[in-house]
C-alpha cells in the first residue's frame, strides 16, 4: 500500500465524481485547443489567401475616396466599380523603379440575386491572363490551362458545379472552375478574361454589367509586385506621381482583415473565459465536496500517522491525476472535433481553413495541456490545502 495505490483506488472507487471532474477539465482543454486551432486555421487560410493574391500593391483610381473605404472596397469588391483610370497608367506604373510586374483588372457592375451564387451581390472582374499573377495561382489549382474565351471561374460562393453553363446578363459563360473560400471579395466574384470582356463590349445592345459611361481604354485597378530589395512604401510613394491614383499596400489589407476578425476573436475569448470560470468553479465544488465527504478518512489517516503534508499530497495527487486525465482526453476530443467540423467551418465562415502542421498541432496540444492544468490549479489547490488543515479530532466527531 502506498500513496499512488490509495489514489488509484480512490479514483476507481468513486467513478461518478472522477468522471465529472475529468469531463469538466476535458471540456475546458477541448475548448482551449479547438478554439486555438480554429483561430489559427482561419488566420493561416487568410494569410495564404493574401500571399496567393501575390500583389504587394493594388493601385486604384483616386476620386477623393477615404483610403480606408478604398481598402474595404478591395475586400468586398464594392465601390471600386464606376471609378476608372486610363489604361496607359499600367505602362507608367510598370516603368517605375522597383516594380517587378503589373497587371490590369476591370471591375464591372455587380449583379444582384444571381441564381448561381449564394451571395446577395455577385462581383464581376475581367483580368488579363497573360500578365495576371493574382488570379492565376488560384486558377492553377482548379484549371490546368489558361482561361479561354467565354469561360469563367467563380469564387467559393458559387452554387453551381464547374461544367455548368451560366447566364450573366445576356451572356452565356461556361463555369470551368470554383475557387477555395478566402473570406475576401474573391468568394463572391466571377472572373473572366479581358478578351471575353472586349468581345462582350463589341456585341450590339445594352449591357447591365458594363457601365455605359465606361470610357474606352479604361481600367479599374492595377495589381503590382515590387522587386526584391525595394521598399513597398517607397514604390507606393513613387506611384502617386503617375496621376490620380491611390496605392494600397497588401499589409494594410491584412490589418483590415485582422480588424474584421476582432469580433469573432472577442466572442471566442469570452466563451473560453466563461467556460474556464464554470470549469474551475465546478471542479472546486466537486473537490470541496470530496474533501467534506472524506473528513472521517482524513481523521483516520492522521490518527494512524499521516502528516498534514501527506494529506495535502494525497489530495493533490488525486485531483491532479484527474486533471491530467481530463486534459489529455479533452485535447484528443478537441483535435478530433476540429478535424470533424473543418469542412463545416469552411462553408459557414466562408474562409479557407488551414490546420497547422503535425508538429504545430503537437506543440499546441502541449501548450493546451499546460494551460488546462494551470487554469484548474486553483480548483485543485484550495480543497487540498483545506483537507490538510482539517483537525482530525473534530473530523471524527462531526461525522
Amino acid at each position: 500500500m502506498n500513496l499512488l495505490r490509495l489514489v488509484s483506488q480512490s479514483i476507481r472507487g468513486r467513478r461518478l465524481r472522477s468522471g465529472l471532474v475529468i469531463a469538466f477539465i476535458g471540456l475546458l482543454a477541448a475548448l482551449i485547443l479547438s478554439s486555438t486551432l480554429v483561430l489559427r486555421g482561419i488566420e493561416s487560410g487568410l494569410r495564404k489567401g493574401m500571399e496567393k493574391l501575390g500583389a504587394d500593391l493594388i493601385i486604384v483610381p483616386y476620386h477623393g475616396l477615404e483610403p480606408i473605404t478604398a481598402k474595404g472596397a478591395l475586400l468586398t469588391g464594392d465601390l471600386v466599380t464606376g471609378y476608372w483610370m486610363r489604361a496607359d497608367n499600367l505602362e507608367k506604373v510598370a516603368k517605375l523603379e522597383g516594380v517587378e510586374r503589373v497587371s490590369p483588372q476591370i471591375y464591372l457592375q455587380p449583379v444582384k440575386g444571381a441564381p448561381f451564387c449564394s451571395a446577395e451581390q455577385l462581383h464581376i472582374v475581367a483580368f488579363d491572363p497573360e500578365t495576371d499573377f493574382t488570379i492565376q495561382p488560384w486558377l492553377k489549382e482548379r484549371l490546368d490551362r489558361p482561361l479561354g474565351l467565354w469561360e469563367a471561374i467563380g469564387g467559393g460562393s458559387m452554387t453551381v458545379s464547374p461544367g455548368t453553363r451560366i447566364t450573366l446578363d445576356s451572356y452565356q459563360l461556361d463555369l470551368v472552375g470554383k475557387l477555395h473560400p478566402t473570406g475576401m471579395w474573391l468568394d463572391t466574384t466571377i472572373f473572366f478574361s479581358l478578351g471575353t470582356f472586349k468581345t462582350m463590349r463589341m456585341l450590339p445592345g445594352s449591357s447591365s454589367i458594363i457601365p455605359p459611361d465606361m470610357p474606352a481604354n479604361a481600367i479599374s485597378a492595377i495589381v503590382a509586385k515590387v522587386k526584391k530589395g525595394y521598399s513597398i512604401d517607397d514604390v507606393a510613394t513613387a506611384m502617386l506621381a503617375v496621376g490620380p491614383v491611390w496605392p494600397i499596400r497588401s499589409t494594410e489589407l491584412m490589418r483590415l482583415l485582422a480588424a474584421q476578425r476582432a469580433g469573432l476573436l472577442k466572442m471566442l475569448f469570452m466563451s473560453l473565459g466563461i467556460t474556464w470560470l464554470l470549469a474551475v468553479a465546478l471542479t472546486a465544488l466537486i473537490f470541496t465536496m470530496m474533501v467534506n465527504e472524506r473528513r472521517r478518512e482524513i481523521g483516520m489517516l492522521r490518527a494512524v500517522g499521516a502528516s498534514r503534508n501527506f494529506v495535502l499530497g494525497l489530495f493533490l495527487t488525486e485531483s491532479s491525476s484527474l486533471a491530467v486525465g481530463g486534459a489529455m482526453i479533452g485535447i484528443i476530443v478537441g483535435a478530433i472535433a476540429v478535424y470533424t467540423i473543418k469542412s463545416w467551418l469552411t462553408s459557414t465562415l466562408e474562409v479557407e481553413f488551414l490546420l497547422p502542421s503535425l508538429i504545430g498541432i503537437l506543440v499546441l496540444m502541449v501548450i493546451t495541456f499546460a494551460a488546462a492544468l494551470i487554469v484548474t490549479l486553483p480548483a485543485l489547490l484550495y480543497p487540498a490545502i483545506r483537507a490538510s488543515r482539517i483537525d482530525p479530532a473534530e473530523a471524527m466527531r462531526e461525522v
Partner: protein
Amino acid sequence: MIELQDTTKKYKLRRQREVIALDNVSLKISPGEFLVVTGRSGCGKTTLLYLIAGLARPTSGKVFIEGTDIWQLNDRRLSALRKEKIGFMFQVPSLIPVLNVVENVMVPTMFTGPEKRLDAYDRAKKALMDVGLSHKMEAFPRHLSAGEEKRVVIARAIVDNPPFLLADEPTANLDELTENEVMALLQSIHKGGTTIVLVTHHPSLIGYGTRHLTMSDGKLTG
C-alpha cells in the same frame, strides 16, 4: 508511560460560547496497563483519548508519551510519533470504503520506513489472522458486519505492534456475543504486552481492565 499534566480542553461553540470537555485532568498510564475509563456520553472520554493520541491540542496542560512532550513536536514528528507509538480504534466506522480489508489494514504501514514496508502485506495478513478475519482479506468494508468491521479496525491498530492501543467505545452497536469476541481479542492483545486505554459508557467492560477510572463532567475520579 503516558502522562497528562493538568490538562484542560475547551471547545469553542458558536457565539463565543465554550464547553469544557476535559477539566484539569492529570493522569499517568504505566506500560502494560489495561485502563478502562467509564462515564456517561458527553463526559469527555473521547476527548481524553484524542489528547493522549495527539489528535487534539490541549487548551492548557501537557501530554507526555514516553517522556516526550508531544505538543512540542512539529506536525511531521508528532505524526511519526503517533504512527510509532499509538494504535487507535475510533468509535465511528473509519475504514476506507474503496480499499479492501487487507489494504485497509495496510494503511498505517504507508507511513513507516521503506524497509518496514517490504513485509507490510505479510504483517497485515498476520494481523487479520490474529483477529480471525483471514478469510475476508479481499472483502470491501460494505460487505462486513459491524463486528467484522471492529475486528478489521483492531487489526489495523495492531499491524505495526504499537506499544499503546487506544479504544473508543470498541463495543458500541455490537451484540453481546460479538462484544465478548472483541473484548477477548483486546485482552489477548494486552497479554501480548500492549498498553490499552479503553473508554466506554458500558460498565460491563470494567472487568476486562487492570485499572478503572470514572469520568464525569470532564473530570476523572478514582
